[in-house]
């Protein structure tokens, strides 16, 4: 079901989408399952003078994805500082997934004089009080790969729903439109889990031959995914033809199947983790993965913020882009021999970007071009 707040804003959503160039609207497909696209809240915002204070309001720092994102941010700010555009210090907070703490940290950052806050909120709604305050005080708030429902924020993301469609379509096609599929979900209650799942389900619903035999909640954690998958297989003797993987759990699913003595099934990747690529390569699988590394995610969000600092205005509050696809054909461009099944990295796009910088041009109006050429 659509998120409650998105439903309220459905009309506004449809209205705002009119401002998105028609050719790019497919990347916004089904996004209202997740959140609403709204007009640019920073329409009348005057960018602060350089040097700008950049801040990072993070919700967790315990994995390599987040670490890569932070490192990318630090590098970009350093580049900006060298050009005299930013203060050299990046103010960083981490709330350990406690949304109340993150909110108070956000409010603190506003008080500390941050001009641009990039944030990965642990809840799409929990920061809204702070986001409103930021907006009121002329602070630019940009969410990174976790859009918030608040009208006052700029969201930069790939479309989770669109990612679910991409992977779901591949799996349906790889199975020839028939067979039994297990859904392997991330953390329940989080919007990306729901959006990805719903999108993939909507694809499978179009294939009468595909039977979804169950959902396993793997929490985006390999050890949990493998345990749950083993328990699932222990109680489901029927043949499993495909596993739809909602990110990070593909290897766990494959190992669980083979260790339970089951024939191999088709499994998609979602995030382009090195681990999955190595597994893919070693076992000569046929698969498809998206690439969703932390560094590119932060780069795209920073790029949007940088454009806005130059006075460019986004056409809507939510900037979405498609994720690059890793396929059997281009796997070798992504895979590196150093990757192993135990690797904990993400395969970054060869040029460090999810999409070409020019992808965003149609989504912005006015303003000046960037003063420095950004390099991821």
């Amino acid at each position: 079901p659509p998120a409650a707040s998105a439903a309220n804003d459905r009309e506004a959503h449809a209205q705002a989408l009119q401002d998105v160039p028609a050719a790019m609207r497919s990347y916004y497909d089904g996004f209202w399952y997740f959140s609403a696209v709204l007009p640019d809240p920073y329409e009348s915002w005057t960018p602060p003078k350089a040097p700008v204070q950049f801040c990072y309001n993070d919700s967790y720092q315990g994995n390599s994805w987040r670490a890569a994102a932070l490192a990318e941010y630090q590098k970009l700010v350093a580049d900006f500082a060298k050009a005299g555009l930013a203060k050299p210090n990046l103010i960083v907070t981490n709330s350990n997934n406690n949304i109340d703490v993150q909110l108070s940290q956000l409010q603190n950052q506003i008080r500390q004089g941050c001009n641009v806050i990039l944030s990965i909120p642990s809840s799409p709604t929990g920061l809204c009080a702070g986001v409103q305050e930021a907006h009121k005080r002329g602070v630019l708030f940009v969410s990174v790969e976790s859009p918030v429902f608040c009208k006052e924020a700029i969201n930069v993301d790939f479309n989770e729903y669109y990612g679910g469609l991409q992977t779901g379509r591949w799996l349906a096609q790889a199975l020839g439109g028939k067979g039994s599929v297990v859904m392997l979900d991330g953390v329940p209650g989080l919007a990306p889990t729901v959006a990805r799942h719903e999108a993939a389900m909507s694809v499978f619903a179009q294939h009468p031959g595909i039977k979804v035999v169950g959902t396993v909640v793997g929490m985006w954690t390999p050890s949990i995914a493998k345990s749950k998958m083993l328990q699932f297989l222990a109680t489901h003797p029927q043949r499993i033809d495909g596993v739809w993987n909602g990110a990070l759990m593909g290897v766990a699913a494959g190992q669980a199947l083979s260790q339970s003595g089951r024939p191999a099934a088709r499994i998609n990747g979602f995030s382009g983790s090195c681990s999955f690529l190595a597994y893919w390569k070693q076992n000569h699988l046929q698969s498809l993965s998206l690439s969703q590394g932390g560094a590119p995610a932060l780069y795209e969000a920073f790029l949007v913020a940088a454009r806005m600092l130059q006075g460019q205005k986004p056409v809507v509050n939510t900037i979405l882009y498609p994720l690059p696809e890793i396929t059997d054909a281009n796997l070798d461009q992504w895979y590196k021999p150093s990757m192993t099944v135990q690797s904990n990295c993400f395969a970054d796009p060869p040029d460090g970007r999810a999409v070409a910088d020019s992808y965003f041009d149609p989504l912005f109006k006015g303003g000046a071009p960037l003063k420095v050429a950004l390099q991821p």
Partner: protein
Amino acid sequence: MMVALRQRAYAVPVLVTVALLLAVNAALNRSFVSPDNWAPILAGATPFIVTALAQAAPILAGGGGIDLSVGPLAGLVNAILVAVLVPRGLDGPLPMIGAALALGALSGLLNGAIVCMLRVQPIIATLGSFLVYQGLTLEVLPTAGGSAPAWLRAASGRVGWIPGPLLLLLVLAAAWLALGVTAYRRNLLAVGGDERAAYAAGIDVAAVRIIAYVIAGMLAAVAGLAFTAVLGSADPSVGVPYTLTSVAGAALGGLSLAGGRGGMLGAAAGGALLFLVQNLLTLAQVSIFYLQIATGLILLAAVAINAVSDLRRRRSTAAA
């Protein structure tokens, strides 16, 4: 008067620590003390304080008393308010506060009955409700969303000239003081101190304990209301982390986890302490990689101070 002071002696270390942290916070960031910021700061501290208060009641009641369901219950209340009541137009203060408190009381009654009537160990009984509430929350609210009514959101700011969260804390303090006039608080400490002695003296141990769980449930529900006010929406993952912080807060507040010693003042201070530590570490821009270490160390230091002062107190008792 002296007795009243002595009864609160257990809370002195934590109160001193809180005062110290307030001073450091204020020194690091002037705006911390500006009246404009009282409401948001208090709003941030409220969930910590209220959940620690909730945890305090079953801990004081002894017999291994603990309520692991405090966090998930607060989350469930948040979900039910926003995803069930608001869409049905029941978004006035009366239905929302009433429903939250009723839910909390019901949960406490259940937990209490399982502990006292079925005689299941509290940690396992409330682990059961922990899981059940977590599941129910997802059932009610599959993903974050919704919005709280305007009056509730406004309450996290100012009510008249007084910060809403402060008003809430004052109401809770008044309620606890009122309980002190009745026999309940003494009964609670007696049951927690030695359940056999309390039972033999004719105290209805089960009733006292069940009420402690009801208090915990209702305070957890109040925390749920507070989340809703601060977040302005509902989020199924918001409550769970507060179970551990509530236990930590109560322990920091000088409550004996064996029961029978301590009180709500300490628990509130313990909760505030946890908030201030996080706030301080953020303000001080402690590298995020060291944040968790610092939190753990401060926690250890605080309990150590408590323990040492407590050992000293007990030594002097023994010598007398």
